[in-house]
């Protein structure tokens, strides 16, 4: 075993939250080391035009994703079933390399609704404890929206988020989301212009009586210089966003917002091809002494550190905590234990909307988040759930993120999947179709969790993470309800034909169908060590010099895309580390 010189802070995983932690801690003068299992990646030479406009390499074969050949997860539907490996990409995607999933995301940058952060308290108060099914175990974050607001803003100004404010200091503003929590400042950039599909959707939604607004987007609408002095360029709606790097320096990522400054700091070091296998603890088990990793040559390396930031992808965070023996693993039988608890996902439905040949949608004109219109009337607790019998909700979106033909070409219902009929439908509908979809929450349940698989191992011989997950009735009801509202809008759009993908009772979770990469939970934050793994500052209740960032902290999954909330929670955590923890290391919240 090689033993490296000690550092003050070691960061495990170098995507969004690792980069935020790095830059916010770098000006304390501490010696900071980031360990990333993948390679270095930057806009040039890795995402340059025209090579990035390659649907097969990036969109289909997954050039930017973590190679599953070396490490994956296993999946089963229920406790007691045998889990099998997630052998090919389908349902969700893991990032890889510097920037992580923050490279190939779409830039959909939402804040949580105020009630999302105090969801258990809010639902109990409004509808009564009995409104929630017995095995639903939703919780509060231990942070209120008002407390988090400055950090949500900080992340938006880092990214140059483009959008229209709907609630500025309590005043509801036209054109924005009237359901959002109050913001102190407007978005740093105006909204991106609408694609034609989004325009048609928004007109129809207004006619039905809903409140469409442009999706808050980290595809910059204009040139922007962020508070670190890093410049982003305007998005040109190239259509190669999700699953792709951005050649325009438009989509916010660690590379376009933080790394040009952070990489020059003399007290910051990045080591790539460094795969962390364990957080090391002292003999008391109450203090971390650093981490062990495997370097590019395959050598085991011990890296001593005073503070360990676990900032890998949600599932990798959970796995590392389990492999390191920090906190008690969750037991679905007793409901006790916290590591692996409250795994959740998201549930989408989608409607293909087909027009006649006189409607030129031009689906290839698209951005990952810009150019899309949103209806948020049926998300979170923006409406009275009382008569409907479910908790949570979804936003409805209209428009398209691109028209890449292998993955995004849609054909009307009844079209055969091959042959002359398929070809004719592909030819006739490609230019004249758009999408309306719902993007919804998934609650947490006693029997939905993560642990270590007893059978399957990664390339280094360590057990894979095992997912035990299937849908519950609450989510079928949610999806059905919001999808019906989406269909009301689609009817107003007056299309020639529509197709529908909706998950109904009896449909099992299908690992083959991509929905979102927004997997959450497993190292959740909360108000007490009995219920959560982390306190409100994302600090381990058990080992005070371990902080865990990212969507692993979510006690249940909200209807929005998670990155905005992840960024806000990370800024709140690092401020507490800087201003309180470093002066007096110890628990930031007394259990």
């Amino acid at each position: 075993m090689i033993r490296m010189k000690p550092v003050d802070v070691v960061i495990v995983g170098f995507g969004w939250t690792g980069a935020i932690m790095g830059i916010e801690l770098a000006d304390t003068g501490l010696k900071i080391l980031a360990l990333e299992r993948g390679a270095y990646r930057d806009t040039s030479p890795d995402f340059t035009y025209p090579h990035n406009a390659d649907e097969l390499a990036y969109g289909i074969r997954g050039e930017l994703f973590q190679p599953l050949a070396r490490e994956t997860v296993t999946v089963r539907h229920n406790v007691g079933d045998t889990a099998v490996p997630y052998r090919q990409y389908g349902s969700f995607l893991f990032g890889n390399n510097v920037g992580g999933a923050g490279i190939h995301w779409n830039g959909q940058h939402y804040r949580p609704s105020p009630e999302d952060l105090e969801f258990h308290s809010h639902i109990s108060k409004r509808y009564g404890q009995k409104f929630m099914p017995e095995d639903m175990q939703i919780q509060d974050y231990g942070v209120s929206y008002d407390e988090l607001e400055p950090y949500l803003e900080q992340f938006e100004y880092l990214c140059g988020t483009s959008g229209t404010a709907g609630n500025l200091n309590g005043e509801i503003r036209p054109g924005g989301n009237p359901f959002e929590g109050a913001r102190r400042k407007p978005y740093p950039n105006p909204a991106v212009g609408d694609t034609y599909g989004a325009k048609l959707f928004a007109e129809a939604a207004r006619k039905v009586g809903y409140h469409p607004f442009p999706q808050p987007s980290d595809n910059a609408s204009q040139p922007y210089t962020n508070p670190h002095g890093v410049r982003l360029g305007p998005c040109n709606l190239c259509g190669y966003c999700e699953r792709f790097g951005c050649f325009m320096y438009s989509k916010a990522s660690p590379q376009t917002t933080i790394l040009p400054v952070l990489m020059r700091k003399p007290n910051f070091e990045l080591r790539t091809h460094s795969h962390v296998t364990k957080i090391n603890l002292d003999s008391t088990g109450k203090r971390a002494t650093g981490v062990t990793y495997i370097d590019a040559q395959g050598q085991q390396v011990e890296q001593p550190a005073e503070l360990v930031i676990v900032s890998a992808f949600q599932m990798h965070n959970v796995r590392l905590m389990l492999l390191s023996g920090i906190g008690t693993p969750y037991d679905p039988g007793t409901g006790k234990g916290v590591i692996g608890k409250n795994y959740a996902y998201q549930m989408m439905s989608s409607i293909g909307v087909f027009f006649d040949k006189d409607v030129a949608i031009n689906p290839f004109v698209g951005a990952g988040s810009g150019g899309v219109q949103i209806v948020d009337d049926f998300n979170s607790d923006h409406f009275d759930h009382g008569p409907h019998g479910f908790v949570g909700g979804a936003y409805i979106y209209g428009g398209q993120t691109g028209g890449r033909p292998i993955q995004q070409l849609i054909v009307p219902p009844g079209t055969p999947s091959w042959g002359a009929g398929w070809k004719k439908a592909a030819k006739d509908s490609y230019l004249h179709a758009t999408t309306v979809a719902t993007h919804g929450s998934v609650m947490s349940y006693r029997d939905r969790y993560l642990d270590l698989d007893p059978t399957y191992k990664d390339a280094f011989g360590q057990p894979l993470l095992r997912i035990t997950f299937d849908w519950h009735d609450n989510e079928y009801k949610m999806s059905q309800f919001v999808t019906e509202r989406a269909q009301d809008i689609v009817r107003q759009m007056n299309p020639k034909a529509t197709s529908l993908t909706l998950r109904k009772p009896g449909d099992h979770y299908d690992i083959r169908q991509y929905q979102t990469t927004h997997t959450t939970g497993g190292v959740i934050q909360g108000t007490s060590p009995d219920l959560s793994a982390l306190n409100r500052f994302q600090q381990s209740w058990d080992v005070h010099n371990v902080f865990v960032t990212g969507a692993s902290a979510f006690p249940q999954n909200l209807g929005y895309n998670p990155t905005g909330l992840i960024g806000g929670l990370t800024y709140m955590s690092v401020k507490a580390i800087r201003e309180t923890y470093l002066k007096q290391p110890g628990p930031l919240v007394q259990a």
Partner: protein
Amino acid sequence: MSSKPSSPSRRDFLRQSLVAVPAVSLLGTSAIAQTQSGSAAAPAAMSAGNYAPRYFTAPEWAFLQAAVDRLIPSNDDGPGAVEAGVPEFLDRQMEAAYGHGGLWYMQGPFVPESPPTLGYQLRYTPREFYRKGIAAIDDWCRKQHQKTFAELPADQRDAILHQLEKGEIHLDDVPTAAFFTQLLTNTKEGYFADPMYGGNKQMAAWKMIGFPGARADFADWIEQPGKVYPYGPVSIEGAKS
């Protein structure tokens, strides 16, 4: 023969590919079998266009042309899969990391009887899957129809593809619905991927649907909603059409 360079004109190509399929398949089962004792390891020499496959053998090559020709047939709507070079795409993919299963987690134990919703659980890499699948289907065709798949007329090939799709044909080594899904998925990939991968020749599939390929710049277009986009496709290597 189909090894002769074909005319760039779509009409000519169309006519040629229609006759090419049975011609290749005849050669695949008689001439090659005689000269090479039916060795499955020998690469096929014949192709649509000038492409000589590196991975697929002559009988496999004949099968693929006969199959993709039905999955995306050539007609007045636009190019067929053979004409677009899909077999070449498939052959090249077999030599890529993808074909070798290098992108998939391939450690056992394998539990192929898992619910389909838990995804691919076979031990075959794409290369192995095609090899096993084609041999098994050709065997089945010989037993049922005394001919290989490629030697059968188009309507019979269609009927067999439908049966494969529905999993109605049971073969010892290969779950046929899974094999069909693999073939159809890869066929559509080759049809619509950038031409540098060997398919979508002359960007004909992109032209058919109206996709502008790697243009990747629509900054001006967001200001003109609903207007027909006037420019033809470009490829990553800079070809225009």
